[in-house]
């Protein structure tokens, strides 16, 4: 009686899981279209600085990323771009606890182990006479589990991360950061 009930629940759960697993994380339909969420992200990830010196801002960004442990991967000053990355530990005690408990029941999801964090900075002159520079930074991370498989690739969208980055940048260039 009890067994058949759990079985029924499992059978009901399965199509749900399959449906979820069926959707791709990136699709051609939605990922080349601008959405209001994307504009909201831009708002969070961008600040304006009162300066005409775009190169100086870009240089400071490079120095700031280096200060926070990033390595510079690619840059093109003429286009105002900079990309950087770093590898860090991603061990999470809670996930290990779930893993150990799960192993007893035969449903073990390997816990996170490493992560690659990426930063992508762009600068561009803005304002009527080009007297301001807009800086946008995007952070992303790739998480690997203990079996070196990619577990998660996600954009880091917590506004606090960006606030903290721009506060540091603002201090480093001795300029106030304005919202866009």
């Amino acid at each position: 009686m009890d067994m058949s009930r759990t079985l029924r629940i499992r059978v009901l759960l399965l199509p749900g899981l399959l449906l979820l697993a069926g959707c791709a994380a990136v699709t051609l339909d939605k990922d080349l279209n601008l959405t209001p969420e994307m504009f909201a992200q831009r708002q969070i990830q961008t600040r304006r600085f009162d300066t005409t010196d775009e190169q100086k801002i870009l240089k400071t960004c490079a120095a700031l990323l280096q200060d926070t442990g990033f390595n510079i991967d690619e840059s093109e000053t003429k286009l105002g771009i900079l990309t950087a990355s770093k590898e860090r530990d991603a061990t999470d005690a809670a996930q290990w606890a779930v893993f150990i408990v799960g192993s007893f029941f035969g449903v073990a999801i390997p816990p996170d182990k490493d992560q690659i964090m990426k930063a992508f900075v762009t600068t561009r002159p803005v304002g009527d006479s080009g007297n301001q520079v807009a800086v946008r930074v995007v952070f992303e991370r790739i998480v690997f589990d203990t079996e070196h498989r990619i577990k998660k690739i996600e954009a880091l969208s917590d506004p606090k991360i960006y606030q903290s980055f721009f506060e540091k940048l603002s201090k480093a260039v001795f300029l106030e950061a304005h919202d866009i």
Partner: protein
Amino acid sequence: MISDRFCKTLLMLIPLLLVAGCMTTHDRLLDMDTSQVQLRSIQSRAFDTTDKEKTMRAIIATLQDLGFMLDRADYTLGVVTASKARADVMQVPAALRVTVTVRPRGEKQLLVRANAEYQRGPVTEPKPYQNFFNSLEKAMFLEAHQVD
């Protein structure tokens, strides 16, 4: 007797293996499965500007807006490559990679061409490119013209 037949079968297998060895996936290096002219037209748009820097900056800004991470950019070559990959426990991991090139078209225009790759295959349908150029138009404040 049986072992003799077995030997013959084995001997016959060797040339088969050799033949199979000749079949490679090299032909994918210069993918020629769709009409190249048609594909080029799907992937290209002309803009009424000669400002290469501004155009490339608009392309990069658009890709950043769309959540792409930059892989490579070269002003002199007029090339930008960016990719967007996402994965989660409940979702199928997927990656979209785009290379955009900018070059002069006549005296007064720039030709922008985008090549997309999705899940290890080329993107040949027009709709995704249309979406990308629609997004780019907004950043360029210019109309994208279809070219033949």
